[in-house]
């Protein structure tokens, strides 16, 4: 075997084995392209802008990655995002609660929504899509009832100054914060028993059950984590906007699912990594950013997103096809060997 052939095999190995290989390729190509079109794309200021914007998506993507890998789905996150922000906003302004308590209250609302999602999916065995669609309407409805469509405004200055805080005077706090959450998510997913259960449930729930994995508990946890993170992202966003908007977070679920899928998370479960999903979130914002800089209208941007989503899934399917072709070839070769020996 020549050296050349060996490296090629290693590359294809990497491409097939690593779920984030697709997004890494896409991201590299895209950054190269965007920098060619617009040399200031990689400027310090622009990169910080992109990272700051991706931070909000990233927080939700961490939860969505967990859910999707178990083979589940959460469509309620956009509404929970708004409801969490709203409750903590009301707590700060109308109830005059201290800011940390108000934030905690918003997170508790997230926890309740997540628990309800979990109960519907795990105990009542309602398909995740329907259960969380219901929760989407319920939470959004609660937002409308509470605000009657009027934003909670103004929020206390101390809270509004939270998001723009800069670490080392240069990096907006949301960047290290969201990265921290992603890193924790990565460690949980890749290196804990719970993380391994998440993969096992998505890969083969029946096999996971027989192997003694508590499926109900694991699923419950991922739905709760998701909603708490969504509420957290919503609260952070309200700090950035300076008000709790009733319409905020509309369509967030699709953006987050899109980011996760582009990042190599399989919607049918069992495959994907936190790194891939995080890069997916980054890519979504980088794409928005560069399209905006290129003065392409928002309407066209949606078309680009749609195309990218479909292409990334195509790439994923192509990968699976290659894996399958390999797996049907190898046993035959092995059997042959067996016969010879």
């Amino acid at each position: 075997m020549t050296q050349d052939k060996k490296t090629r095999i290693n590359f294809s190995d990497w491409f097939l084995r690593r779920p984030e290989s697709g997004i890494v390729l896409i991201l590299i190509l895209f950054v190269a392209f965007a920098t060619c079109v617009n040399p200031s794309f990689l400027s310090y200021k622009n990169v910080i802008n992109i990272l700051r914007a991706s931070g909000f998506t990233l927080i939700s993507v961490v939860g969505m990655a967990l859910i999707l890998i178990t083979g589940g789905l959460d469509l309620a996150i956009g509404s929970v995002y708004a409801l969490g922000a709203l409750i903590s906003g009301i707590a700060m302004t109308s109830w005059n609660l201290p800011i940390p308590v108000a934030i905690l209250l918003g997170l508790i609302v997230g926890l309740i929504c997540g628990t309800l999602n979990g109960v519907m999916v795990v105990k009542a065995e309602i398909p995740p899509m329907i259960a969380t669609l219901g929760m989407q309407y319920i939470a959004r409805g609660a937002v409308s009832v509470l605000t009657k469509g009027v934003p909670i405004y103004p929020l206390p200055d101390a809270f509004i100054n939270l998001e723009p805080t800069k670490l080392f005077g240069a990096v907006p706090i949301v960047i290290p914060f969201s990265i921290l959450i992603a890193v924790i998510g990565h460690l949980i997913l890749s290196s804990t028993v719970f993380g391994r259960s998440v993969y096992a449930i998505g890969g083969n729930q029946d096999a996971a059950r027989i192997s003694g994995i508590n499926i109900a508990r694991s699923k419950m946890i991922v739905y709760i984590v998701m909603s708490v993170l969504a509420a957290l992202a919503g609260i952070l966003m309200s700090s950035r906007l300076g008000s709790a908007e009733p319409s905020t977070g509309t369509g967030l679920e699709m953006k987050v699912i899109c980011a996760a899928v582009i990042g190599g998370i399989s919607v049918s479960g069992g495959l994907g990594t936190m790194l891939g999903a995080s890069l997916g979130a980054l890519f979504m914002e980088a794409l928005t950013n560069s399209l905006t800089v290129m003065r392409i209208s928002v309407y066209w941007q949606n078309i680009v997103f749609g195309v990218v989503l479909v292409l990334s899934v195509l790439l994923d399917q192509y990968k699976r096809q290659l894996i399958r072709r390999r797996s049907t070839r190898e046993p035959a070769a092995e059997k042959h060997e067996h016969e010879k020996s």
Partner: protein
Amino acid sequence: MNTKNREDRNMKQAVLCVRNVVKRFPGTIALRGVSFDLQEREILALVGENGAGKSTLMKILSGIYPYRDYEGSILLGETECHFSSPAASEAAGIAMIYQELNLELDLTVAENIVLGHYPKTKTGRIDWQKVRADASAMLYEVGLNLNVDMTVRNLSPSMQQLVSIARALYRKPKVLILDEPTSVLTEREADNLMQIIRTLRDKGISCIYISHKLDEIFALCDRTVVFRDGIKISEFSKQDGYDSARVIEDMIGRRLVSMYPERRVQMGEEVLRAEHFQVPHPFSYGKNIVEDVSFTLHKGEILGLAGLVGAGRSELVSAIFGAMPKKCGKLYLDGKPVEITNPEQAIACGLGFLSEDRKKNGFVWSMNIRENMTLVTLRTLVRKVFIDRKKESRLADSYFRKLQVKAPGTETPITSLSGGNQQKVILAKWLMSDIKILMLDEPTRGIDVGTKAEIYKLMQELTDGGISIMMISSEMPELLAMCDRIEVLGKGVIQAEFSRGEADEIRLLQAASCT
């Protein structure tokens, strides 16, 4: 077989001829040149052990494996058939009744019967009056007096079975294929069904009847063809009289030579006792697949569970392991009562369970060998919060070598392994954990001979180490060679118990088929 038979065949006209059919799968050949005829007004039985090729042949006849997917030819009357899909086979006049009913449970009886062939009015709308009339006529054919507007879900399994036959008849078939039609029926219902099949034959419909229940076949079928390992071994006709021993002999065929380790038995005290297990049928509501089963298992013993497909062996073991709900039944471990309602508790009690269907609930396809191996034991590999990856790899590696898994390494995806090696990985998963009792459901199904022998050797080593094993198998030689005791299940109860040396294949099969 003899001259008289041959004359018969010439006199009657063949409705369906199967000529030299060969079907290959990657790695194996399921059918190695099969030929047989089905004559007019005849009920033909196909018998054979699991994996003999009956199902494959039926899938070819019903168009599931389309033309060109197999070699050889199929003639329906005079014309050669090139089915491209199940619909094409149906249109040509072959109707199939599957073992698992495939009715639309939420549609009415009438709709189910005419499904896909709705009579239309001139304006192109469905002619509901004719739908009902046609459906009633078909139900009359099968001797079922039923309101055609009832939802199929509300019918009993036997009624559903008859509805699916009515549905097949509506397509005016020349050939009716029934695959294990009585597996969900009671004895009386089965008798009724057989009477209906006889009536259909007399009306000119030829039937192929597949069943493991030899008593039924001998009572019903005009001719019996025996399959083994993808070839037709022999055929018997009713006129000559059936000899159950000879049919069984032909079904089982050759003996496997020296695949088995010498069994050294050091039976200890009782480790597990199951009392009065009753398990509901997974598919048909209100019926039990296991009616009342009690047994004991001793330390270092291999206990075999024999029986036909659908006898409830897998369900019994699944219920013990908590993977399936049970209606009632008490379990004692080392004499102490335990309550197991889910696999997590079973594992905590020291039970391991190698399931029948590797793909369905054996391995996690998206994981590699290492991850699949440590699925059960992962909790013991945690240092502080995180999994100790080095320890995990070392453990997986040691079992990888011990069981001689043939793969590049423990990081290889499990889907790229052959069935035998996948089985070894799943076995490793249980061996790693601290088990006292290992339940093996068809541990050697679809596995090549070499790996089989390795698994038998491993079983011997495990029992030497004081582990008790329960083994379900449909391969009689395997049960006879490996087990210290064999319980034969049939009709939801234990039909017979044999200790080592008492049983032979014929006695086992007779007990299992309740003849």
